[in-house]
């Protein structure tokens, strides 16, 4: 068989979206997966499609990608559990409420629908939140989906365009080739979309595994309706401290409640950190006391591919000819997958992108990692 135009290493949501975008351009693509699609961070993720605002670059990429997702939702099969839940950024006090105002202006000026809820409106929207919270910002265009099913669907769509998949473990990447357990595979270009494992294949990539816990409950349909995130979430997400938690509660289309989030740097230790899990659940109970009575049926961990400046690495990796990187999405891989696929296709085809790709260039100057 002739070698493909592009070899994609990794069949998580990002690798799947790259396969989708590249095959749509008529390129011959092969995806290398170690076991099955979405078995890494994709399978552990919440699946919150969310526009973020902590930097212009992050906003531009999340907003672009959410638009791409929104255009896809009519095609997604039921297994993807797509739900137009919207996000409520919950403000605990007056200070945070001021932040809500700034956030509303930021979104408004950039054409993203968002509205401010008062304390009373918040309680009416989500009666299981405790009284006394200050209010919230509602972003109705944000969505929820089931990430491993979405990754599989993207790969199936790609397969219809001729994309092949190979179950083999990649052990190194060189100029226009991938070294695997069973030999060397060559291609015109290689995309490293191996998530938290990307630096194991491309040494020097500034990506570290950032462990997170999630816990899911039995079915309580209607317990909450929006994805509820505390406004202090960014403080946790960008906290330089080794451990942090934030209130993050998501209604699944099954009626189950999915509860996050925690962050810690402990390598690839997949054990449950009971103390941190308890802090995370305790934080949720502070915001929604009735959470305490919900029956937890399963807890798990996953490893976000974190970068020091909280932006992903998307584009050409100059040190290795023919190598492109699509990794380092931290907790936003599901949201950012379609935009990543487009930027990678543009980079490989050498054409302009819909948004400025330079903030995500893997070779950009990145401040030293707080956790490095």
């Amino acid at each position: 068989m002739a070698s493909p135009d592009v070899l994609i290493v990794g069949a998580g949501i990002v690798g799947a979206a790259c396969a989708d975008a590249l095959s749509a351009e008529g390129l011959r693509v092969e995806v290398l997966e170690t076991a099955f699609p979405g078995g890494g961070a994709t399978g552990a993720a919440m699946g919150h499609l969310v526009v973020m605002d902590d930097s212009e670059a992050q906003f531009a990429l999340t907003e672009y990608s959410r638009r791409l997702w929104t255009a896809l939702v009519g095609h997604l099969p039921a297994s993807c559990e797509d739900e137009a839940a919207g996000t409520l950024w919950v403000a605990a006090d007056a200070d945070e409420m001021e932040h809500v105002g700034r956030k509303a202006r930021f979104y408004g000026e950039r054409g993203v629908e968002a509205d401010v809820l008062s304390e009373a409106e918040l309680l009416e929207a989500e009666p299981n939140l405790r009284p006394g919270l200050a209010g919230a910002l509602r972003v109705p265009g944000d969505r929820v989906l089931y990430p491993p099913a979405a990754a599989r669907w993207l790969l199936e769509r790609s397969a219809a365009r001729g994309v092949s998949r190979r179950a083999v473990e990649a052990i190194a990447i060189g100029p226009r080739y991938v070294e695997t357990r069973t030999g060397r595979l060559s291609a015109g270009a290689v995309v490293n979309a191996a998530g938290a494992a990307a630096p194991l294949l491309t040494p020097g990539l500034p990506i570290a595994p950032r462990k997170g816990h999630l816990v899911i409950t039995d079915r309580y349909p209607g317990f909450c309706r929006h994805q509820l995130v505390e406004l202090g979430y960014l403080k946790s997400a960008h906290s330089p401290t080794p451990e942090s938690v934030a209130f993050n509660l998501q209604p699944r289309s099954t009626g189950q409640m999915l509860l996050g989030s925690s962050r810690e740097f402990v390598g690839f230790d997949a054990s449950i950190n009971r103390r941190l899990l308890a802090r995370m659940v305790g934080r949720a109970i502070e915001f929604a006391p009735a959470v305490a009575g919900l029956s937890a049926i399963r807890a798990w961990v996953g490893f976000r591919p974190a970068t020091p400046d909280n932006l992903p690495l998307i584009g050409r990796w100059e040190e290795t000819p023919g190598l492109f990187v699509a990794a380092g999405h931290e907790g936003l891989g599901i949201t950012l997958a379609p935009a990543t696929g487009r930027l990678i296709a543009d980079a490989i085809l050498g054409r302009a992108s819909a948004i400025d790709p330079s903030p995500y260039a893997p070779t950009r100057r990145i401040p030293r990692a707080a956790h490095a």
Partner: protein
Amino acid sequence: MPETVRVLIDGRAVDAESGVTIAAAAINAGERALRTSIRGERRGVLCAMGICFECRVTVDGHPHRRACMDLVRDGMSVETRAGGTGLAMRGPGRETRSARLETVSCDVAVVGGGPAGVAAACRAAEVGRRTLLLDENLAAGGQIYRRRPDREPPPKARPWLQRLARSGAAVRNGICVFDAVREKDGWRLSASTDAGDLIVRARAVILATGARELFLPFPGWTLPGVYGAGGAQALWKTGASMRGRRALVAGSGPLLLPVASSLSRAGARVVLIAEQAPLAALTRFAGSLASSPGKLLEALRYRAAFAGAPYRSGTWVKEARGDGGLERLVLTDGAAEFEVRCDVAAVGYGLVPNVELPRLAGCAIEGDRVTADASQRSSVPDVFCAGEICGVAGLETAIAEGEIAGLAAADRWEESSEAPRLTRARARGRRRAARMDATFAPREELRALSRADTIVCRCEDVPLGRIASCGSAREAKLSTRAGMGPCQGRVCGPALRFLFGWDWDTVRPPIKPTPLGSLVSVEELA
């Protein structure tokens, strides 16, 4: 005379004897279905032992209560057609985070109140160790002596239970251990009850968590009225009447005969006992029982009690049929098929050790059982294992292993003059168990029973056709949701191991559905 209580089931007033479970009361009131599955099918009790979560009902507004584990209370409202909104929904047993927290320290903590756990607790307590027995059931005795808590234990169970009462061991029932953590000087167990949370600190832990039934899916096995074999028996033991029912007992193993006996005593007419193992294997087994004639006698006694119920070997259930509930079964002996009209089917293929807690504690597991040494010590310091989790080998073995574990956890095993007797009893049981495993091994044909549309994961309603294209248990979980429901793969996991050879070995806390507030409070207390 037992007191009568009035319970509302879906708004209908029903009288029930106090002391029976909700499941039994519902069945006695003619309700075979207790919940609506996520695809809209009506479902009834399967295991009746708190494992499968098929009998989840909403009790006084609290959703997801197991009807097989909760007793009726006067004025209780039970809803079997869940749904509704979460706004009014409260969790299992509490409004908000419980303040009722307790820490208990002891020398030896025993998890599981069956024969092995009871024997272990007795031996440890009798030599002066501060001993605590934790049991998820409402009365000690395990599944073999399962009973209504308001009833005297059966005569055979009394000697050990009376000994337990005298031993000085503390006993807590209705308690679910959901986590085990190694600490500096021993172990910490985290547990939740309806009344609050509990942390147990113990220098040594004895795990005796018993076994559950092996269910092998077949078309129609989700119809209300199709119970586990032990499940049907447990229903009777917890107050269900089978009066006027036509019952068929099927599957495999020595349990089928006592199950048929129980159903008959519960008032059913047992129309057939169908054992899947071929006659040749049974004959070899009976011959090899010469070393323990008591066992053969026991089997014959059960058989005799059933002169009326035909017993067929080499025969298995192919399909259950009915409109909204079981009406008839299709059976086969591999050559011919025949149909039997019945409204109770008790179908089980033997037992699966409950190794979730030992696995969580890090104990070495081989196949489906824990590896224990001559003193019932696991591979992990200060964790002893006894009974069915070390391999399903019956009552005497479980008691012997429990005694050994209790003595060993109390540092009295090495010096014990009883070592030769207990070691012999254990060895006898293990030899017999190995013969039983060979005799009652599920036949190949059972792998082909399920069709593409046969539900395999009952929690998430996942049919075989969707699972069959996966390559591993983990892929099946992520791709199809199989094993992702509240039973945590306890029912479909062993079935998929049988069907596809998949390991189903991920265990993380909480190992049983647990209120989120309990996860917090035990850590705050710890």
